[in-house]
């Protein structure tokens, strides 16, 4: 079984488009979306990374390009090492990466969740539907423009909605959330700011 450092070197030789990714802990590589499946397969079959520990995405906010990054964490159950593989979604408006379900059946639910939360399509996924939110939910909650309070949405069951008039309404936030912005602070910006997501049934939702 080769050591993780050797695997990372070999991976970068085999996939010349792979670039090192800054990381505070585990070895990490960036790969173009077209090559990520082949690289994952290489890591699984040759590199000994037999378990897909985690699969998720990061939204770098609207207007940033590339906007979405899909991140895979692989674990070797024999060598007990992790490797992080990341790939930027080429299209910011309709992000898509190939599905890893062919390599690990466990990727199925992870990819459904990532699709559910970010709207990233995994091409080749056998059953890409929402998993945490209900089918037909119109938003992608973990995208940065989605407010913490939530968005006014019809109930999944139209019949119950017609009967009761109930809807999914945003939480009353009382001017909040009060939170400092992520990123290095300077003294004037150190205080938490009210993001004001308090629009609710009594206050109009401001146009985004």
């Amino acid at each position, binding site marked *: 079984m080769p050591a993780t450092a050797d695997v990372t070197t070999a991976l970068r030789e085999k996939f010349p488009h792979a670039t090192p990714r800054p990381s*505070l802990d585990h070895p990490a590589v960036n790969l173009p979306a077209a090559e990520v499946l082949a690289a994952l397969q290489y890591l699984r079959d040759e590199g000994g990374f037999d378990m897909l520990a*985690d699969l998720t995405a990061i939204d770098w906010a609207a207007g940033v390009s590339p906007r979405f990054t899909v991140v895979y964490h692989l674990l070797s159950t024999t060598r*007990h090492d992790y490797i*992080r593989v990341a790939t930027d979604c080429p299209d910011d408006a309709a992000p898509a990466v190939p599905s890893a379900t062919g390599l690990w059946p*466990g990727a199925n639910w992870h990819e459904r969740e990532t699709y559910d939360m970010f709207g990233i399509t995994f091409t080749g996924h056998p059953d890409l539907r*929402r998993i945490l939110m209900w089918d037909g939910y119109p938003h992608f909650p973990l995208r940065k423009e*989605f407010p913490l309070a939530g968005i006014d949405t019809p109930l999944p069951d139209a019949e119950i909605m017609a009967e009761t008039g109930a809807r999914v309404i945003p939480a009353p936030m009382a001017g909040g*959330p009060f939170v400092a912005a992520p990123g290095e602070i300077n003294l004037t910006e150190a205080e938490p700011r009210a993001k004001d997501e308090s629009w609710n049934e009594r206050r109009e939702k401001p146009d985004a």
Partner: protein
Amino acid sequence: MAAEFSFPDAAARAAEFEPEKMSLSMGPSHPSTHGVLRLQMELDGEILTKCDPVIGYLHRGDEKIAENMTYNQFVPYTDRLDYIAPLANNMAYAIAVERLAKLEVPARCQAIRVITAEMARISSHLLGLGAFGIDTGAWTVFMYAFTEREKLYKLFEELTGARFTTSYSRIGGLARDVPEGWTGRVDAFCDQFLPILEEILALLTRNKIFMDRTVGVGVISREDAIAYGLTGPNLRGSGVGSDLRKDRPYSGYEQYEFDVPVGTKGDSYDRYLVRGEEMRQSVRILKQALAKFPGGPWYATEARRIFAPPKDKILTSMEELIQDFMIVTAGPQMPAGEVYFEAENPKGVLGFYVVSKGGGVPWRLKIRSPSFCNLSILPKVCVGHLISDVVAILGSFDFVMGECDR
């Protein structure tokens, strides 16, 4: 001779009927789905031909919430992931963020965290066993297990002020030091617990009914367990001896001697055996940790931008007051970067992927929850089993929907 008797035209009669499959929905509120899990099942008679777990009923958007608050403010939310073992979640989250800051906490803090995590493991496994017993028709186990669990909750309450929602960890330390005499009471608990544990396990281990319900039911092969990302006792039940406390020791686990039990067949019974043995091993770890319980500071005293100073200093010294103000308002200051940390929790491996742009608020916090990954194998495992076996399989998985749905 009853065995030789048969209805001559029964088979011919049955062929006239179209074989029909039935669709059945079990849950989201059903006693044997352990929370708000719904199983959409397709049945051929009483045998499952298809199973689609429907999750998300307990989705509270924890990851979204994390992006809108400082690192310390998120600690109470980690209680509500695996709410059966909040102390273990607190610790996993704190270590993940500390890895981001490259911060090492003192030995006393590490030891307290190990002690609380192992107590949480015992309490979680006790509930898991008790509920598993009920699922398979053994009520007594539950009563015995809950009596012991209650004693643990008394100790949790004394330590953290809360029985359930402990919120005990802080980034760089703990909410408070252990109270006077508390370690002695934990030690006394361990001593009286071991014989009772043997009694509890003796109710199930050679129990004919329990074995009939679990042996050979819900078999997961070693390969499948790895491919689906199973972790914890469910993975070890399938014969993979992977335990992060041994493989990648954190919080000083390398100092303690303990064994990692593994199963041989990967059935529900093996998963039960693994949990039973893990409780014995947890007591072993507790005993060692209590024996060499170190003194010294219980929080990272040098991390001035991360851990708030003690209250008496805040009230008397200007410098400490400013520190406290900054940590409370802007959050503990972290460098930019990303870390992924996994801890061996009672239910399996709980992972936190923290992406920071610096400052006191994470840019993205992904929670990799063991129950989510463990349940993803259900569509494969349940097919071909009776409905009553599905109940046994769910019991043997020991999942919590709070962390599955987040």
